C-alpha cells in the first residue's frame, strides 16, 4: 500500500503550512482532505492575534499566551513561523505586508464596516496606512456585481461610528464602473471577474475603465481607492501592477464573501510548494477510518469508489478544523466529539455551551472546545496528562482554548501549530516517538 512519512488531514491553512514545511525538510508527505477549506472562505490575510486592547499582533500573542490558550505553548513559534510563511509567499510572487509589530488598524469591509488587521496581502496593504485629514476614499467596483455595492459601502464608511474612533478618510464616495459585457450577466461572481483580470487584453480594457471612473470621481483630490478583491488569480501580480500604474490614486483590495480570491491565491501557492517539494495534495478524499496499533497510528483509510484504500504512515497531523470546519461534531445528545480518532474533547457541559446574549463581548464557552495537547501538540487523554496517541499531532482550529472569532487568532494558531507540528516530525527519530515522555504538559488541564 502507498506510504507517506506523514499524512496530514485537512486542507486549511494549518494543514497546508504543515505539509509545505514537512515537504521542504525532505519528508514524504501526503495531504488529504474531503474538500476545500478555510482558504476559500477567509479574507486571505493572517489574523495572528487582535484581542480587544492589543495594539499589535505581538502584543495580542503575549496577552493570549498568559491565558489558557494555545499561544501559552505556541507563543515562541509564532514569530519564526509567520516569518517563514511570509518569506515563502513572497518568493512565490504573493507578497504580504505587515509583521507582528505592525499596529493593528481598522480597514474597510465589503459591507461597509471595518475590521482589525495587521498582516495582509500586499494588495490590501494601502488600507493599513493612517488616513490624512484631507484624504478621499473612492470605492470603485464593477456595475452589476452583487457582492460589492460601491454606493452602499461608501455611504456606510462615511459614518464616523463605523471607524470606532480610528482615523478615517475625510470623504468617501462610491463609483460603479461599467465593464464591457457585464451588465447583462445575471450570475456574476468573484471568480468570473478574477479570470477577466487574468486575461491581459480584457484586463487592459477593464482597468482603463476603472481609471477613467476613478479619475472623474476623485477630481484631482488626494486619496485612495477601494476595489473588490478580484484583480487576478493566476496573474494577480501582473493585474495588480497594471492597476496601480494606471489609477490616479493608490488602490487596495477589499476581500469579499466566498469564494475568496485572496484566499485562493494563498491556496494555489501553498499547494504548488507542497507538490514542487514532492508532496501530494489529494482533495475529495474523505477519511474513512484511522488504523491504530499499540497506541500509534499506522495507516489512514480513505473513502474511494467501491472500496477504501489505505495510506501507511509513520505519523499523522490532524488539521481537520474545529466545529465550523467539521473537525469537531456536535451530537444530537449534547456532546462534542472528534469523529476520526475519538480524541478526548475539552468542552463545557451542554448547558454551559452558550450564554444568553448572542453577541456577548466575552463570547460563548463552546467556542473554546477542542483537543488539549502537550507542548509538542500531541493529544492528551481524559486525564489531561497522558499522551493519547504517540505519533499524532494536532494543529489549527482543532486545538482547544482558542476563541478565534473574538481574539482574531485563527490564522496565527494555524501557522504556528502547522509549522511546529512539521518541525516535531521533521526527522525520522521524531516520527518514531515510542518511549518519548510528554513534553511540558500544561498544568491547568
Amino acid at each position: 500500500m502507498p506510504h507517506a512519512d506523514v499524512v496530514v488531514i485537512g486542507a486549511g491553512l494549518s494543514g497546508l503550512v504543515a505539509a509545505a514545511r514537512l515537504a521542504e525538510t525532505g519528508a514524504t508527505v501526503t495531504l488529504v482532505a474531503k474538500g476545500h477549506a478555510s482558504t476559500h472562505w477567509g479574507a486571505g490575510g493572517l489574523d495572528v492575534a487582535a484581542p480587544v486592547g492589543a495594539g499589535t499582533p505581538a502584543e495580542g500573542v503575549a496577552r493570549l499566551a498568559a491565558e489558557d490558550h494555545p499561544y501559552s505553548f505556541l507563543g515562541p513559534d509564532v514569530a519564526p513561523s509567520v516569518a517563514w510563511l511570509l518569506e515563502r509567499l513572497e518568493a512565490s510572487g504573493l507578497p504580504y505586508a505587515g509583521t507582528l509589530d505592525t499596529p493593528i488598524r481598522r480597514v474597510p469591509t465589503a459591507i461597509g464596516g471595518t475590521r482589525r488587521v495587521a498582516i495582509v496581502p500586499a494588495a490590501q496593504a494601502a488600507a493599513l496606512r493612517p488616513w490624512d485629514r484631507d484624504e478621499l476614499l473612492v470605492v470603485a467596483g464593477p456595475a452589476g456585481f452583487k457582492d460589492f455595492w460601491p454606493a452602499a459601502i461608501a455611504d456606510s464608511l462615511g459614518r464616523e461610528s463605523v471607524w470606532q474612533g480610528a482615523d478615517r478618510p475625510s470623504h468617501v464616495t462610491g463609483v460603479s464602473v461599467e465593464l464591457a459585457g457585464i451588465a447583462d450577466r445575471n450570475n456574476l461572481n468573484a471568480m468570473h471577474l478574477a479570470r477577466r483580470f487574468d486575461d491581459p487584453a480584457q484586463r487592459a480594457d477593464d482597468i482603463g475603465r476603472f481609471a477613467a471612473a476613478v479619475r472623474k470621481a476623485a477630481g484631482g483630490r488626494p486619496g485612495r481607492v477601494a476595489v473588490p478583491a478580484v484583480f487576478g488569480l493566476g496573474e494577480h501580480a501582473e493585474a495588480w501592477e497594471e492597476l496601480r500604474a494606471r489609477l490616479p490614486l493608490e488602490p487596495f483590495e477589499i476581500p469579499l464573501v466566498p469564494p475568496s480570491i485572496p484566499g485562493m491565491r494563498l491556496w494555489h501557492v501553498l499547494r504548488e510548494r507542497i507538490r514542487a517539494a514532492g508532496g501530494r495534495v489529494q482533495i475529495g478524499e474523505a477519511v474513512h477510518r484511522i488504523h491504530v496499533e499499540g497506541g500509534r497510528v499506522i495507516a489512514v483509510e480513505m473513502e474511494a469508489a467501491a472500496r477504501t484504500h489505505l495510506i501507511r504512515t509513520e505519523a499523522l497531523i490532524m488539521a481537520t478544523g474545529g466545529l465550523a470546519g467539521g473537525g469537531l461534531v456536535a451530537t444530537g445528545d449534547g456532546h462534542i466529539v472528534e469523529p476520526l480518532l475519538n480524541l478526548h474533547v475539552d468542552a463545557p457541559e451542554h448547558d454551559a455551551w452558550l450564554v444568553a446574549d448572542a453577541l456577548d463581548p466575552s463570547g460563548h464557552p463552546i467556542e473554546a472546545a477542542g483537543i488539549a495537547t502537550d507542548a509538542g501538540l500531541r493529544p492528551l487523554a481524559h486525564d489531561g496528562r497522558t499522551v493519547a496517541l504517540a505519533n499524532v499531532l494536532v494543529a489549527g482550529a482543532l486545538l482547544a482554548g482558542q476563541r478565534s472569532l473574538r481574539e482574531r487568532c485563527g490564522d496565527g494558531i494555524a501557522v504556528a501549530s502547522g509549522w511546529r507540528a512539521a518541525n516535531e516530525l521533521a526527522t525520522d527519530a521524531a516520527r518514531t516517538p515510542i518511549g518519548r515522555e510528554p513534553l511540558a504538559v500544561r498544568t491547568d488541564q
Partner: protein
Amino acid sequence: MTIADIVREAAEERPVSASSDECLKCNVCNTVCPVLRVTDLFAGPKYEGPQAQRYRMAGLQQIQGPDSVNPKSPDHSVDYCSGCGWCTTVCPAGVKIAEMNSQARGRLREGRRPKLRDWGLAQTDLVGTMGVLFSPFANFAFHNRVVRAAFELALGVHRKAPFPQFSKRTFQSTWKRRQARRPDGGTTKTRPGPDKAVVYFHGCSANYYEPHVAEAAIWVLKRNGFETIVPEQVCCGLPLISNGLYDDARERACKNGSVFAEYARAGYRIVGTSTSCTHTLKAEYEEMLDMRDADTTAVSHATWDICEFLLDLHEEGRLDTNFGRLDEDLPYHAPCQLRSHGIGLPALDLFALVPGLRAKDMDHDCCGIAGTYGMKKEKYPIAMKVGAPLFEKVKASGATVAACDSETCRWQIETATGVRTRHPIEILAEAYRAADKAGGGTAAD
C-alpha cells in the same frame, strides 16, 4: 461501532438529492467548475445543483393554484453540465452536486423522446458494431469533411469533434477466434483460479476502436502471471447516463451484472482499461441508477482500474518491475473519471518505476470532452476552451507521446494537439518490451 461509523451511516441514508441540505452556499464548487470557467451558458454547479433543488422539489410537489407561484426551474441550462465531477470533489460539506445535476437531467428526459443526436451518441455499442462492420466506409464517412458537415447540420455532432478510427474487427471477435485456435478449442472447463486470472471489461473503446489497448493489457497481465477471461459484455452504460437515458443504462447494467457478478462471487477481480467504464461499474450503477441489488454490489466491489490493479500487485511485491529504459518526456493527463475513483494517480506511480521515463502530471482540471459532451455541436466550443490550457501544456512539453487513462480524453488531446496520446498500459507494455530487447529476455507470449 465507532463514532465515525455512526456519522457515516447517517450520511449514507441520505440520497443524492437530500444532500442539498448540507450546502452552505460557500461557492467553492463554482470556483472549480471548468464549464463555468469558460461560458455563461451554464449557471454553475451551485445554482444548478443545491440551489435549484428546492425548485425541483416544489415542482415535484406540483404546487399549483391561482395564487401560488410555480417557480421556473433553471433546468434549461443543467444540460450544460459536463459531468466532470469536480464540484463534488471539492465540496467541503459533502454535497453530491454533480450527481444531483445528472439526476436532474435524467428527470428532464423521463417520458420524452431524446434528441436523435443524444440517443445516437449514447448508443456506443450500436454505433461501434455498425462502424466495425462497415469500417472502411464508416472510417471514410466519419473523417470526411463533407460528411461531417452534413452530420453537423442534420444531427448536431460538431464537424471537428474528435472521432477515432473504427477497428477492422472487434476485440471480442479477435479474442474468440484466438480462443478457438487454442489446442482445447477454448472449451476447457478448468479455468485458472482467481489468483491466476482476472476478468477483463474491455468496454466499447477497446472493443471497437482501440483493440491494441486491450492487447497491451492482456500482455502485461500475462507477464505478471495473470490469465485473462473475457466474458460477453455490453456497454457499461455511462454514455446513456450522461445523456439522461437512465432506463437504457439500467438495462445495460443488469446485463453486465448478470454476467460479471458470477465471477465476482467466485473471487475474480474485474479489471478494465477504460477508467470511466470501471468507475461506472464501481459507483454509478448504485449512485446514479439507484441499483442496490446483490449483482451490482458484487461487481462494484470486484472492479479495478488496470493501473490501480497493477499498483496493488506492486504493493504486494508481485509486480514484475523489470522495466526497460524509456528515455522520454511523457505528459500525463489525469481524467476526471479517474479522480472520481478516489485512488490517487496510480499511472504516475507505475511510470515512476520505469527507468528514464520522465512522466509529468499536466495538472489541468479537464480536457473538455467529458465523454460525448464535447462532440455536440453546441458544446464543442466550450469543450475546446476548457481543454485549451492543457493542450498548450502538452504542446509546450515538446513530447511526441502523451498518456491518459480515458479514451475520449485521449482522442480529444490527440486531435487538439497532434501529440499521440496513449493509455498508460501501452507505455508499460513498451517498457517491458524495452527490457526484453535490452536483456534478451522472453516476451510473455
